[in-house]
């Protein structure tokens, strides 16, 4: 049993809870929406969210209220809200649970945000593979509409709130907010050049907010219990609230754990997730999804909040915590992630497009014991030449596995290369003669 109160996962852990509208209402659902619609000014809802300190749960951790506040004031045309349900960061699987087990909590969050920013139409962009999740959401939207929580003149307030479920079709990059918008417009999911930002030029070039599922699911609770309550949870002032950490890899009990931000990696892995699955030692941790640099057992006491993880040289990211045990080949692990990034690079920016293929090939060669010592310097420089040189953050993400494994486990690379050199002298007399 958790030692702390669950917020987002609370309903679904109640015996017999099905996620239906009836169950959700019984658990106090849609009270928050009733509380604000027509009674609290939209701008005050935004203020409330700013005060709560809620930060985006998708990866970048941007303060949610501040993001809303960027929308142009007094804008007359349509504005849009997009719920980013493209959960595609390897190591992350929390949004799926939120949507499939308690869909109305997400919908209520969307409705609150839509009201706050004045969006009559909201789209849930859900990754294409989550077919079941999309069905559950569709059904929940229909229920909520029938009950008057969505549609025109919601709860007699005059507000119009439509929510549509839109399925992606298999592209990691569509989790990037501008790529998501492109994809939602029916195009190839290529990130846009910023500025302009979605707040002014988003979906259909209109002011748009894109928020993650977990971020939005927090809203009913913030409204119901007040921003002060929320701001006191976790590691205030900068990392407030709980996070759902998704633990995967070599642990006894992988899964989603909702905990206040600020508990340590050690607590998460050894208390919540049951520790290592075998008697092997912990070797490496990815603390925030595939885009986050690897950490080591040295970092077990790092607190899981935005600042602490960043200070340790990684990032809290999307909350995907992957644990690797002793014996895991770090070059292999880096290559697996690099292959992912190579497969998912949209191809827009030259450094990322060409770099991901170059890095992947070089890693493969090193792993296949055909590497050379100078490859390591090349790898490092290529990574440096990609990071910060691309339109979106993908470029920074894709170099994280290599940079961090080179930092902590360079000797594993070197061993493979030394073996390669030994072979090479036998197989390639020409190359040997050169030395």
């Amino acid at each position, binding site marked *: 049993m958790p030692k702390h109160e669950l917020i987002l996962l609370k309903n679904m852990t109640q015996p017999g809870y099905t996620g239906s509208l009836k169950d959700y209402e019984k658990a106090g659902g849609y009270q928050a929406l009733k509380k604000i619609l027509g009674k609290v000014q939209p701008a005050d809802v935004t203020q409330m969210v700013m005060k709560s300190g809620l930060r985006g749960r998708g990866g970048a951790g941007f303060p949610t209220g501040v993001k809303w506040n960027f929308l142009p004031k007094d804008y007359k045309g349509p504005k849009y809200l997009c719920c980013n349900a493209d959960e595609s960061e390897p190591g992350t699987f929390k949004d799926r649970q939120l949507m499939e087990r308690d869909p109305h909590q997400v919908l209520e969050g969307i409705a609150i945000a839509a009201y706050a920013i004045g969006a009559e139409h909201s789209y849930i962009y859900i990754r294409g593979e989550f077919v079941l999740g999309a069905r559950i959401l569709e059904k929940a939207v229909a229920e909520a509409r029938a009950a008057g929580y969505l549609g025109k003149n919601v709860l007699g307030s005059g507000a119009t709130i439509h929510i549509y479920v839109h399925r992606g079709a298999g592209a990691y990059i569509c989790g990037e907010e501008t790529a998501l918008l492109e994809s939602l417009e029916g195009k190839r999911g290529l990130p846009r050049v910023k500025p302009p930002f979605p707040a002014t030029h988003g979906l259909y070039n209109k002011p748009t907010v894109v928020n993650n599922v977990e971020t939005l699911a927090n809203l009913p609770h913030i409204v119901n219990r007040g921003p002060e309550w929320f701001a006191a949870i976790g590691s205030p002032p900068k990392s407030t609230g709980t996070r759902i950490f998704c633990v995967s890899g070599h642990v006894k009990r992988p899964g989603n754990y909702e905990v206040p931000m600020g508990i340590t990696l050690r607590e998460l892995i050894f208390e919540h997730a049951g520790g290592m699955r075998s008697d092997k030692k912990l070797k490496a941790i990815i603390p925030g999804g595939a885009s986050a640099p690897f950490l080591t057992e040295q970092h077990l006491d790092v607190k899981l909040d935005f600042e602490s993880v960043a200070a340790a040289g990684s990032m809290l990211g999307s909350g995907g915590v992957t644990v690797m045990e002793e014996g895991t080949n770090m070059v292999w692990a880096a290559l697996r992630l690099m292959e992912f990034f190579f497969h998912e690079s*949209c*191809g827009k920016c*030259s*450094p990322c497009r*060409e770099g991901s293929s*170059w890095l992947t090939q070089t890693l493969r060669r090193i792993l296949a014991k055909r590497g050379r010592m100078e490859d390591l310097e090349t790898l490092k420089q290529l990574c440096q*030449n990609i990071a910060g*040189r691309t339109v979106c953050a993908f470029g920074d993400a894709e170099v994280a596995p290599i940079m961090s494994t080179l930092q902590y486990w360079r000797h594993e690379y070197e061993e493979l290369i030394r073996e390669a050199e030994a072979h090479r002298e036998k197989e390639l007399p020409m190359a040997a003669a050169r030395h």
Partner: protein
Amino acid sequence: MAPTTTVETVRLTIDGVQVTVPKGTLVIEAARQMGVMIPHFCYHPKLTPDANCRMCLVEIEKVPKLQTSCSTPVAEGMVVRTATTVVNEAHKSVLEFILANHPLDCPVCDQGGRCDLQDFSHQYTPTTSRFAETKRIFPKEYFSAAIETQMNRCVQCLRCVRYCDQVMDVNALAPSGRGTMTEIKHFGAHPLDCEFCGGCVQICPVGAITSRLSMYEFRPWMLKRADTTCTYCGDGCQITLQTKGNDLIEVMSAQGAGRNNGDLCARGFFGYHVSTHQDRLLHPLIRRDGKLVQATWEDALEHVAGRAMQLKMAHGGQAFAGLIGSRCTNEDLYVFQKFMRLAIGTNKLDSSARYGHINGVRALRRVQGTHRWTVTFEDIVDAQALLLVGTNITEANPITGLKVKEAVKKHGAALVTIEALQPAVGTISNIANLSAHHFGVHPDRFQTVVLGLIKAVVEEGLVAPPLAQRAPAYVKAIGDAVKALAWPAIEQQTGATSASLKDAARVFAKTSRAVILVGQGVLRQPGGSGLTTTLLDLLLLTGHHGLAGCGVAPLAEENNDQGAVEMGAVAEYLPGPSDLGDHAARQRLAQLWKEEVPQAPGRTLMDMLDEARAGTVKAMFIVGENPAGALPPSAKAGEALEKLDLLVCQELFLTETAALAHVVLPACSYAEKDGTFTNTEGHVQPVRQAIEPLGESRPDWEILSGLSVLLGAPLEYGDAKEITNEIRSLLPGHGLLGAGPKPPRPDDAVVTKYLTEGFRSDLAARYAPAKPADPHAGQLTLLSAQSLFHSGKFSTRAKGLLQIQSTGSLAVNPADAGRLGLADGSQVRLSNQQGHMTTAVKLLDRIPEGLAVFPEHFDQDLRRLLSVAADPQTGVPYCKSTKVKIEKL
């Protein structure tokens, strides 16, 4: 009035130098303006920045990361550094990435020597690459007969894709796949089917997209270049003919060059092989024993001069007539009319401007006293409202079409279209898709839609008050005329609601910059001049007439239709143009020519043929024109020409007309001579010799000059420049060859005259709704129209264009096809009282129901179905449409 805008400027520092540029300028452009070239691949001034190649990174003070200069607008006080160590290292590293997968096949790449990747590599990269992995290889795929792709060379900058979308509105190029495996395709494995404008070839910074027409034929530095003007339509695009020896190798148009700003269409880009076609006439021919046989120039000219002298002695100058094609240069046209008037002594001369262009000019002269547009291409781009009437603009005037697209897509202009088109996406762009107020009707109903708009202007109180004050009678007369029209009748005939007409009228009337473009669907159809006049009424009524940036602009179909009129190579005008009877003009000419201009009236094309038939005209000089091929057989042009005692043709090819001649004199094409063309805007542009004349061919003016000497009335010129100078001395301001035309202002006196009295003469006819004869069941209206891929019959000898379109087929609406039981490719028999033909059909959504469109360039059979009727006022022969019965074979 057009708002006078002061351009806000911004001051910034680039590499230590302070510059002031307009607000909104991109850093890369600001740098270019001061001579700093920031390397780039994906950036192009015509396209919205995509910042994908990441090559143009620069340091901007107070910004932590390097920024792409192509997507960063300047800001006040910004400090930019483009060449620091950090920036140079970044450029090097991006280049290293781009080069990683690029094959080093430069030795066999057509782009080698003019390749951005080569140049930047030369500038930045060490000679060895750290890339030791396997290069990406795409399987080679066939792309199209005209355009080749080599995807291994692609740097994925997507300039081609963005050009095809943003500039052309064609969207034929698909970046497919993702990541490093992204390749440019069309639709799956289908070969490219598009406008073939060649824009993707021109805009590709590397050798990934090249022309198949010249593949492996050259190295760029071996080519000689001549900047000249395209000969295919009135748009007058600047092209660079590139040659090797006497072979034409390829055409390009430099970014920013010419009225076309570097953009071209298929005709301009792929149609250049006509000049060197194997069928070119290389020697003079004289008819002996009924057969045309090769002769020397001396014999041929003497033969012509001898016969002409005989006929002139016997029958006088009035027994002669002359006809010239509007593909000739101004110099040819000018010498031709001077030759006819002085050396022969007749005003019976005409040109192919008679086929329609003259209708527009006559209306402009009548209402506003100009013979040219009062607007320019820039005014089209800057217009807030554009009304297109019967332009078929994509096909007929593709580059003017790009200006319209730019106005709509980039600047949000409101587009109103009255076209024989339906909005539908196809392989070529469709202006109706961009239209905010589209009226898709048959050409014989254009007038009714225009009257509907005027009625809406009157009834909605949109008549400009100053006009109502200035010309109350005019306003009242038109008001009365349109009030007499009933909305239900208009609605029934046009299929448009009065509400939609009123919406369009409001949008048009309430903008401050409005341009009306009038195309061949008006000018080459009965009543063309009258409808153009009525469109001027619309502009007058809404108060736009006379304002800067506003005007009615009749589009020229042939490249020098406008020049033919201005050079006086038409029946009713002297050079200027001035009316034939204009005393002052005659005096000016007499002074310059040192001889009187003949008094007798001119004769239009159709009149000439009648006179030839009647025997009053006994000899004709025909220069680059082919009435026997252009007019339908029912016009019996051939028979008329056969009756002549002397028919002299100056031609490139043995056309239907030339085949009837007594003497055929081989003429040069535009590629072999100097001179000028005047485009549809009235801008005079240079024609420059690119290759030596083929065989013994000579420029038309030179042939006429030679003849004039033998006829004892020497018109001698050393070169084309001398003729240009003579034209300029006669017409001050002609051909100043600046960057753009200086449009004339309407002549107030003429406008006043029109508003007080001039409008009345044909008011009733112009303001009566058209009475289109509805086709009987099973009948369609057949339209012989311009294709995007050809121009007259001329281009049907261009091998590049024939690869794109080599035959004609009948385009019909799928609904009609359904009713007639036709599928794509079905063979059909078309028939009417005139005759019959068989052809294949092609189903096209953009063809309105009830219409069947056939490309005029392949009308050998189709012409048998057409009849011809000359306009009683302007003499324009109308022979573009008829009713036909269609049966499936």
